[in-house]
């Protein structure tokens, strides 16, 4: 056993034993009970509450994230000095190796930009697809029908993400359903390579996260009083202005929440690009994966991961600013 563990255990033991040795256990407990929080919950329940939250927030959320950031500033290459701080993992993303011909690391930068822009595109596409459905379900259908529709919406999402991507592969493959049908009808002479053209990937991405767009918007529109829409209509507003001036402003928190989730999941997607992405086009998460498991440089992988996390944070902040919502409304 290492020094650290023995010291740690000794401290814990000392803390446990000390009060008993002092023979004033009762006063210690009495003092403990004086704290309002403990008074309110009792000793056992307080210990459980604080312990569980400490393990979660401390050991599972904050410490690993901070450590990942710290780790990304170190030299993780084989033969490097792991103790010194360095910026080289980040500079590699921007400039690449010194020996490269180009000043910038065009390959990685391009993939990064493509990932971010394509995720924005997927988010917009998902919004355009889902808004009419969410509006229809929330305002035009009644009790039983709505529940039926909602179940039908959830159902495909019980199927694994990977199997869903697999289904799209069957659909879009060169001997897939679309190509076979189009060729059978005589429209095409030879199959279109949907996978190489990334069509399959964008379709798969917007399919994968549709649910997370429909539900927040549905929840937001559902509470809108239908009389408001009637009033706008009676006052002569055309349908598009009703949406633009009444429904969308009301549903803003839901739209913001859906957009954030879809963007975050698309930018961080790994299964769909792996399965449906063309052989020559990579997603940013795939580069991260390669640093970890084929490049063998965890520090550089962490640096790339932090860049991805940072862009997601920027996106969330931008959405919050643009839609004027706070974080509580975003993660409901």
């Amino acid at each position: 056993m290492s020094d650290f563990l023995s010291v740690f255990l000794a401290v814990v033991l000392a803390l446990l034993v000390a009060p008993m040795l002092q023979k004033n256990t009762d006063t210690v407990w009495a003092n403990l009970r004086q704290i309002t929080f403990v008074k309110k919950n009792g000793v056992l329940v307080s210990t459980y509450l604080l312990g569980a939250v400490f393990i979660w927030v401390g050991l599972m959320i904050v410490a690993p994230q901070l450590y990942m950031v710290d780790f990304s500033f170190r030299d993780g290459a084989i033969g490097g000095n792991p103790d010194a701080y360095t910026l080289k993992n980040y500079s590699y993303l921007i400039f690449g190796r010194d020996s490269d011909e180009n000043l910038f690391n065009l390959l990685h930068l391009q993939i990064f930009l493509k990932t971010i822009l394509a995720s924005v595109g997927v988010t917009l596409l998902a919004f355009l697809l889902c808004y009419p459905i969410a509006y229809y379900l929330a305002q035009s259908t009644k009790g039983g029908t709505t529940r039926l529709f909602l179940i039908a919406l959830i159902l495909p999402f019980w199927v694994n993400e990977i199997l869903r991507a697999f289904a799209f592969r069957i659909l879009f493959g060169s001997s897939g359903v679309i190509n076979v049908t189009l060729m059978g009808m005589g429209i095409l002479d030879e199959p279109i390579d949907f996978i190489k053209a990334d069509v399959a990937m964008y379709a798969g991405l917007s399919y994968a996260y549709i649910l997370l767009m429909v539900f927040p918007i549905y929840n937001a529109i559902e509470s809108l009083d239908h009389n408001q829409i009637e009033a706008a209509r009676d006052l002569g507003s055309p349908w598009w202005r009703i949406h633009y001036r009444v429904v969308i402003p009301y549903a803003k928190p839901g739209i913001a929440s859906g957009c954030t989730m879809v963007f975050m999941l698309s930018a961080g997607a790994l299964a769909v690009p792996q399965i449906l992405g063309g052989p020559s086009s990579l997603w940013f998460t795939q580069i991260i994966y390669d640093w970890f498991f084929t490049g063998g440089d965890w520090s550089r992988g962490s640096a790339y991961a932090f860049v991805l996390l940072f862009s997601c944070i920027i996106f969330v902040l931008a959405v919050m600013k643009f839609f004027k919502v706070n974080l509580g409304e975003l993660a409901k």
Partner: protein
Amino acid sequence: MTSDLIQKYMVRFYIAMFFLYLFGPLILMGVTAFNTPTFPTAIPIDELTMKWFSVLANDKDMIKGIKNSLWIGLGVVCLAVPIGLAAALLMSQVHKKAQSIYYMIVVSPLLTPGVILGISTLVFWDRLGVWVDADYNSVFYSGIFLSVIGQSTFISAYCMLIFLSRLQRFDRTQEEAALDLGATNVQVFWKILIPFLRPAIGSAAFLAFLTSFENYNTTLFTIQAESTLTTVLAGKVRLGTNPSLSALAVVIVGITLVGAVMHEIYRRREMRREALAAEAAKRAADIADKGMAPV
């Protein structure tokens, strides 16, 4: 009126297309499970067969992956549900000024890509392992343990949100009444709070298990030398495939359909019971208001 009619049909058409988009790929995948060609093909149908299901049942990698996934799911339920409950109960007790910061921290895993949760868990525990000089067979390097931890990081937040929405309807005076009548804090916790939260505990456990079972992004980084259903599947799909994967999808859809229907029945019954209870309470209140008048 005709323009209204056209609009109505257009809406219907759109909805039909939407659900076709939603179900079409899955139905086609289901068809390939019963078709003979080795490469998953939906049309034309050569001959109906059940052989892909037996291929699936004999796939050792897949069976091992499913086993690991079940264990990890169980571990996540045991870790994430209590944590989510504690975090939800603490929410109302955190000082007002700290509340928004606390909320921001605990929902942040939901807004963080799963890949990053996996990576941070992996590097952190790897470092801890080096620090305490742990053995390579210890938990610090165990794929199963790290996957449970990594997945629980964000699944706990889901559980917390479920508990928070249930707690909003909790009547605090019940707790005070019990305390006034001499119950201890622990008794209040077990006899009042937990029974009230029981439906939420059920849904949280259900959701936690399913989310864990389906997780890929986080698991891919934390699982290392082990495998789960999703990592085995992804490997197979990438290498080119045979229709036994479609057969697996058919099995999963079958199980979940049954599960969804049962969940729906349970929920309806629960709602009816709550409606009855609310009505009874209202009637009791009416009677109390009027004194003994109805007699």
